[in-house]
């Protein structure tokens, strides 16, 4: 029922574009990569790529839209954005157990953007951009103001094509992250609406929030950049990649078996494909399906199986063409021969672990452990850290230790924090020798904020965003990211000819939760009560004592009415007392007599 509607819309759309004479040269591809992991998890990565052959430097191009979403395009054009990378993630990607994802994202929200060359007043444009994006993606990105934004100098160079001069001028770059941002259905809804087929056809029909959020890791990504459309890069286009990465844990629900299928992961079969998509592929990474002891069987059988060699690493993929699915729908399923065999994870070449040290509410330390597990190869990494201003870092305490021995880093770029104005940025270039553990540590003091600056749940603590570790690997073990010039996952297969022997890797560490000394917010009420009581009692008594005049009272003088009554009562009491006393006396005399 939905398919004919989409077909009608598609024809109407193409008809209209023919009439208007404007040829909107954009191409849309949708892909799904499923990779079963050794730990029993299943990693599914959706990638929706829209490539639009327009020149980013011509402003008028952003007026006629085809498959490229208009709501996002207008925001990007209005704020002179050259490149944009936004990710909204729930959960932590465990590099040590799961290897590397296609795109790494920290928990919470992360946004970095490069602005165009002749942009004036970049700070204002950034502030307007985050507000517009917060409305577009229903996330509170508007908190990414100047106090939470930095311009990293070494990390986060433009991933796409850019003017060489701009690329080395980090004043055009803005980076901000909100680790405490949670991701829920309201972020998925507008993200889905940016896709050409929405959720009516194709792989995007799998997006059921009830299934997607019941996972160990969930990440939404919107990545926009310029790409070269020819070898010499004389013409360029723009590319928008929308990605959704989820990590499921089937053994939890299936009594220890890693069996998965479209029905169990996404809740439905694949019954149609997006008509405006040029190609729709499903790739299953079957490299790990080697041992007889523990293997799985895919059904239906794949359309083709191909091996991709990349930097000495061989990966085998089973490929399905979603456009040629059977009429009853495609339910790709993998059945394992036995329960998951849990074993020591084989960590990838580089992984990191970050944590807080110290105790008390005065000071503490941040320690990051960087592990280079390769037995032979040294690695050079750029370690970037952004810390909010209320965690006062002490630069002189920065220490780098390699297997316990102190070393000097190759280069440090440090921008000190300014109270209530900017966070602290630290970028360190380190050399990690083969098979070693490097420890980067720095001490900090905790600030006592002004009482209005605490959030409503002040005792929860304050988040510090992930550190970003960037490096270049020389071999692609467990590496699934795409090289700079390609945009589709299917191009992973044609990388046999990829002469590049370098693979840019970016990983994010854990976020930190720091508790600052928090005042007792009920104190203003307590203080007012106490102060008022003290004033009332103390002031009243002192005033009375100091201003009272003591005068002699003449007993014979005429007193007031009340005092007359009081005197009468006193006299009566005296008389009755005297009578009783007399009677007692007479009683006692009589007793004595008798």
């Amino acid at each position, binding site marked *: 029922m939905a398919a004919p509607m989409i077909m009608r819309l598609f024809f109407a759309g193409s008809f209209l574009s023919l009439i208007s004479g404007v040829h909107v040269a954009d191409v849309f591809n949708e892909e799904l990569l499923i990779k079963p992991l050794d730990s029993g998890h299943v990693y599914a990565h959706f990638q929706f790529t829209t490539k639009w052959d327009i020149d980013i*430097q011509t402003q008028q191009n952003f007026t006629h839209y085809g498959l490229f979403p208009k709501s996002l395009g207008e925001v990007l054009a209005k704020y002179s954005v050259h490149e944009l990378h936004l990710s909204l993630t729930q959960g932590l990607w465990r590099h040590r157990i799961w290897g590397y994802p296609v795109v790494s994202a920290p928990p919470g929200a992360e946004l970095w953007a490069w602005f165009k060359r002749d942009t004036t007043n970049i700070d204002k444009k950034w502030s307007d951009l985050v507000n517009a994006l917060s409305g577009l993606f229903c996330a*509170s990105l508007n908190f990414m103001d100047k106090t939470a934004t930095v311009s990293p100098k070494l990390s986060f160079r433009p991933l796409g*094509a850019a003017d*060489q001069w701009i690329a080395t001028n980090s004043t055009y770059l803005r980076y901000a992250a909100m680790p405490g941002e949670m991701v*829920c*259905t309201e972020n998925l809804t507008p993200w889905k609406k940016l896709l050409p087929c929405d959720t009516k056809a194709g792989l995007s029909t799998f997006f059921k929030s009830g299934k997607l959020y019941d996972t160990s890791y969930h990440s939404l990504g919107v990545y926009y950049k310029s790409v070269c459309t020819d070898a010499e890069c004389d013409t360029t286009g723009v590319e928008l990649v929308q990605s959704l990465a989820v990590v499921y844990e089937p053994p939890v629900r299936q009594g220890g078996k890693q069996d998965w299928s479209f029905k169990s992961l996404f809740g439905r079969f694949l019954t149609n494909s997006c008509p405006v998509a040029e190609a729709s592929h499903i790739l299953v990474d079957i490299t790990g399906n080697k041992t007889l002891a523990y293997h799985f069987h895919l059904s239906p059988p794949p359309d083709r199986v191909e091996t991709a060699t990349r930097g000495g690493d061989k990966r085998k993929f089973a490929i399905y063409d979603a456009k040629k699915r059977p009429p009853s729908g495609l339910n790709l399923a993998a059945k394992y021969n036995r329960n998951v065999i849990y074993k020591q994870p084989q960590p990838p070449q580089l992984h990191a672990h970050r944590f807080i040290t110290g105790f008390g509410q005065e000071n503490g330390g941040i320690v990051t452990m960087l592990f280079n597990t390769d037995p032979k190869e040294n690695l*050079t990494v750029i370690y970037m850290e952004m810390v909010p201003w209320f965690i006062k870092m002490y630069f002189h305490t920065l220490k780098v230790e390699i297997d316990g021995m102190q070393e000097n880093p190759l280069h440090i770029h440090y921008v000190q924090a300014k109270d209530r104005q900017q966070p602290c940025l630290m970028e360190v270039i380190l050399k990690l020798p083969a098979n070693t553990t490097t420890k980067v540590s720095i001490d900090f003091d905790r600030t006592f904020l002004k009482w209005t600056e605490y959030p409503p749940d002040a005792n929860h603590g304050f988040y510090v965003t992930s550190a970003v570790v960037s490096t270049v690997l020389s071999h692609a073990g467990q590496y699934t990211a795409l090289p700079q010039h390609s945009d589709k996952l299917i191009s992973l297969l044609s990388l046999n000819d990829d002469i590049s022997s370098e693979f840019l890797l970016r990983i994010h560490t854990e976020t930190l939760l720091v508790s600052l000394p928090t005042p007792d*917010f009920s104190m203003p009420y307590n203080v007012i009560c106490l102060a008022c009581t003290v004033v009332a009692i103390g002031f009243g008594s002192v005033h009375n004592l100091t201003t009272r005049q003591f005068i002699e009272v003449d007993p014979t003088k005429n007193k007031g009415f009340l005092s007359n009554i009081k005197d009468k009562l006193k006299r009566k009491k005296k008389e009755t007392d005297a009578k009783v006393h007399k009677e007692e006396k007479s009683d006692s005399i009589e007793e004595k007599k008798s």
Partner: protein
Amino acid sequence: IAYFSQIILMIADDMACNPRNPRPAMVFNNANEQINVYGHDVEVDYRGYEVTVENFIRVMTGRLPPSTPRSKRLLSDDRSNILVYMTGHGGDGFLKFQDAEEISSIELADAFEQMWQKQRYHEVLFIIDTCQAESMYQKLYSPNILGVASSRVGEDSLSHHVDSAIGVYVIDRYTYYALEFLEKVTPESKKTLSQFLKVCPKSACVSTVGVRTDLFQRDPKKVLVTDFFGSVRNVELSPYTVTLNDTGDTGDSTASDRETCSADSCAPKKKIQRKKMSYVDQFPVEQFLKRR
């Protein structure tokens, strides 16, 4: 003129995707998981720390910073019917926001008056479900407001039932019965507001539902529920033509953009020098390695 609907949702806590929720991304109206009120197309405009009294009053009165996106604005005019539904903990004359601040009934009354003076609403249906909810509409003094409260001053509003799987009470009594009534209302429904006002008798709600109709000019018996709850589009036909000005607003609008010009005459003014682009070195460490 066609009416359009705009829903602004302010949720302070993340309940649906909270790690404690055994059914992620789903919030049900009862323990039997009958209706998933969180839905597949929910859009929360203000969430987390953005839900403050200041932001709420700014949304109502329209005094938002210029960079606020459209989805976070009320965008109402003098023909708009507005439904305001507030729930949470409250007391005599206040409603709590985020356990840290309160909005008082006087502030709310003043906000509505500002809206009236700036002609930002035609009619308002104000529903409030808190303890002593009646106190929140007692101070209102602007016309065309119909107030419904789940309890009188001095009474507490009660929750309906607990879901043992989650461990908290999942819905309040008034909201439960109001939802039950509204689930049966379709866009073509002829149900009136007076039927909606009778929705939770004391036997069901335990607290007494309060209604304030003195500021409302129409008779609730003649007002359709869909006037407030559905986005029923009314189209007004006009015999006059309206000329639209071409603002040409696609980017940095400078003074020169305002004049209309043809493609040929405009182009020379906007000629930016094109720069050669290429893929950039992602890992700029060579210069620092050489120094060593």
